[in-house]
């Protein structure tokens, strides 16, 4: 019993560390890829590890009071929490204790804390950045939520673990309406990752680096960790929903195989997001909003109705 618990805690800790590492690695690789597309050399793939270490070891940290500090606490703890509630490579972790709605809402904890911190900094630019981030959240959530509901209705479960399990025989992506839905969700993922064309909340050219303008030292370091894990979390969420969490094998060694396939899948979608990022110019915030609430929502609704029709017949 106790041993089980210890093992569980160990696994969870491991996943947390692995998630951080993978995220930072992806960020590094991402920078390299973008550099190559831009025909630059780019930094080494481990550059982000160095950045984080540097920031965390900075000696003078400027704080704007106790509410400002909440940003740090909320962003790291919240994103870790989210990570642990997602099935990774078919391993359910804590996701049996929650479901997709929980994850949707858990994703908001760090951003809300982050927003609190930015607000507390008193910098108007931060305020504007937070506003844009929140509007962006509202924008991409609508199509994303509709596709999520389509999945839930189709598999008759709201638990992510349940959805993943249901896809053991066939990934959702291979069912026609979900192909459409996954395309929609991928654009939503683009917004979640705040990559171009949806990077206006943090675009450095626009509003002096946006919400994190006042963050420095350990605060910025923690935000980088948050960003890294969130990349993992968001792509995993997507993969869990449409690709059965990357589960391809059952039986012996299935764990390691599935883990690798998961890793490959999230890397693919991260890369895809990066490629889109490099290829497109930036949307203004209202353009982004319109894009999501108009075209994306219509497509998502079509897929939802399609699914509903499939379910009731």
């Amino acid at each position, binding site marked *: 019993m106790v041993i089980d618990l210890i093992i569980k805690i160990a696994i969870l800790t491991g996943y947390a560390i692995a998630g951080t590492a993978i995220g930072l690695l992806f960020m590094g690789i991402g920078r390299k890829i973008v550099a190559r597309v831009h025909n630059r050399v780019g930094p080494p793939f481990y550059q982000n590890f160095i950045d984080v270490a540097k920031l965390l070891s900075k000696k003078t940290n400027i704080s704007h009071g106790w509410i400002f500090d909440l940003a740090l606490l909320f962003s790291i703890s919240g994103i870790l929490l989210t990570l642990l509630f997602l099935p990774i490579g078919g391993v359910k972790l804590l996701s049996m*204790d929650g479901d997709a709605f929980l994850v949707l809402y858990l994703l908001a904890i760090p951003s809300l804390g982050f927003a609190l911190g930015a607000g507390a900094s008193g910098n108007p630019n931060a305020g504007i950045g937070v506003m844009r981030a929140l509007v962006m959240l509202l924008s991409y959530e609508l199509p994303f939520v509709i596709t999520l509901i389509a999945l839930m209705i189709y598999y008759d479960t709201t638990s992510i673990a349940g959805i993943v399990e249901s896809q053991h025989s066939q990934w959702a992506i291979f069912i026609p309406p979900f192909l459409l839905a996954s395309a929609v969700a991928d654009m939503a993922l683009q917004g979640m990752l705040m990559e171009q064309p949806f990077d206006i909340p943090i675009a450095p050219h626009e509003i002096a680096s946006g919400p994190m303008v006042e963050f420095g030292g350990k605060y910025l370091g923690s935000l980088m*960790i948050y960003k890294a894990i969130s990349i993992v979390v968001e792509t995993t969420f997507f993969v869990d929903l449409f690709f059965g969490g990357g589960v391809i094998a059952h039986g012996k060694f299935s764990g390691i195989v599935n883990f690798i396939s998961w890793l490959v899948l999230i890397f693919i979608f991260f890369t895809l997001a990066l490629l889109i990022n490099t290829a497109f110019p930036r949307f203004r915030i209202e353009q982004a909003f319109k894009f999501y609430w108009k075209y994306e929502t219509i497509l998502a609704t079509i897929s939802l109705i399609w699914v509903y029709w499939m379910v009731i017949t």
Partner: protein
Amino acid sequence: MLDIIIAELLLAILITFFVGKKLAAIIAFFISLLPLVALLDWASMYGFKFISFGIEKSMNIAISGITLHLAITPLSWFFGIMIFSLFPAIMLFSYSFYDKNDGFYPFMLLALFSSFGILLARDMLTLFLFWEMMSWSSFILIYRNKDKEATIIYLVFSTLSAFLIIFGILLLYSQNNSLLFSEINLTPNLETVVAIISMISGFAVKAALMPLHVWAPVVYSKSDEPFVAFLAGGLSKLGYYGMFLFMFSLPGAKIMEEYFSHISPNYILAVIGALSAFIATIIAFMQDDIRKLLAYSSIGQLGYIAVGLGIGSQLAITGALFQAFNHAFFKAVLFLAAGAVAYRTGKWKISELGGVAYKMPITFTIALLSIFTLAAIPITSGFAAKWLLYEAAIKAKYIFVAPIMLIAGVGAFLYSFRILYGVFLGGNNHPDIKEAPKSMLAAMFVLVLPMIIFVIFPGYALDMMSRALSDAGIASIPHTVFTIKTSLASYNAIAVLITLIAALIPAFLIYKSKPHRIVDFKDNYLAGEIPSKYENISMHAAHNFYKPVEDVMKPYFEPGTIEYYKGIYKGLAILSNTLRKVYTGFTQDYAIYVAIFLLTVMGWLIWL
């Protein structure tokens, strides 16, 4: 015992009418504890025992040839606990809020008394009687503030609500020839269905359900906060109590489904609820007046309850009750907090406020907790409630309701942050204010307690609700103290909490790893310009905060619902101005009318 309580309430209403401010507040506070005491005493019928005075569970009062039947039921017990917890806190709050006794306490106590009556009513006349008493006592409370629009709109909508309700009562009465709930047999025919729909609409007015909500923003933004806290927290719940009574305690919802085979009004109610939640949320973050923002937020949050009632499954109803319970507390706290801020600063506009959190940290913390509940951040009870509703919508495969409801939930983050940023954080516009008075803090703290408790133990809340539902014949959903299970998924509050605490450890380690230096508020990086300490520049970006969304969404919300009501008003005005031209002022014309009248009556009668 019960008659003594009622007599004491009435006596206190009289006394507080005449005594001075402080004494009135003290009397009102202790008197407002009485219903709560009675409810705790009645708790023994749920198996737990706090106190026992042996207060009767039912009572009949004869007045003007009519017998009022009063009795406690599990459902009204639940709503009672919710509503009557608010009153003492509000009285406590108002102790320092008002500087003279100009009718707040007596009419507040009257509202308390009539709420008590509504909850105990066992026949339709009693229900209606107390309902109206509450309407007009709250009307007088609104009227005190001397705002024209609020006065008119509230009275008109109260009357509308009363008439819709009494219309339903009359329809039911003409069928059953009895006013007692226990003697009403609903049969699926047109009149019953019209009665139920009419009553639901009547209660929906008070529950501020769209499109009958238009009074709420006006009234909420033009009244004193202690009263609005009751209005948003208590009164709206009574509206849902009424709906619940006629939809589930009397099986109105079932009757309607039987009568309409295809698309039931229940479904329409759910859609209206969801749309209400969604539209109100969008409108909420466009507001600049914090009271209006909170009002629209209320409308939105209350919409969820309507969704729950509309879906009507065991899951949904439980969720609806849970949401009602949460909303009663967090919205009351938020209004009180807004009141406390206004008490110190005298301002309502979000764009003029800001930076209050540093001066009023306790108020801020309490408000923050309620905002977390409002925004349904996981581990708060607000999340549990909404989660149940989402599950219910998915389970019932309400594909239009579910996404709208969910996106409204996301929208709640936006206006929550609006409050946090605009009022409490952001620019430091109020350097010389103090923390709110102790009585106000105490009031808010008391109200925030249930939220804290049900964070970890949603099971207890579910226990309460399943007992409340027992007499409507609705089974409770499987749950333990920490977890709730549905056929679709489960939610484990303790797992989330423990993991969160565990995840806080690394975050805390990072936080503690290096020391930090707290700098002045204005010491920040502004596009290369560093403002000096005393330079007076606006550091507040709360003005036109969600302008982009507003720009996109505004065209779709034009004209607003109120425009349609104004259209009705204009139509009536034209009608009035046309019809009263009959009174030309010439006696010759009047004589012609007289002659025509005479001949018409004569002709009519001879003809027949």
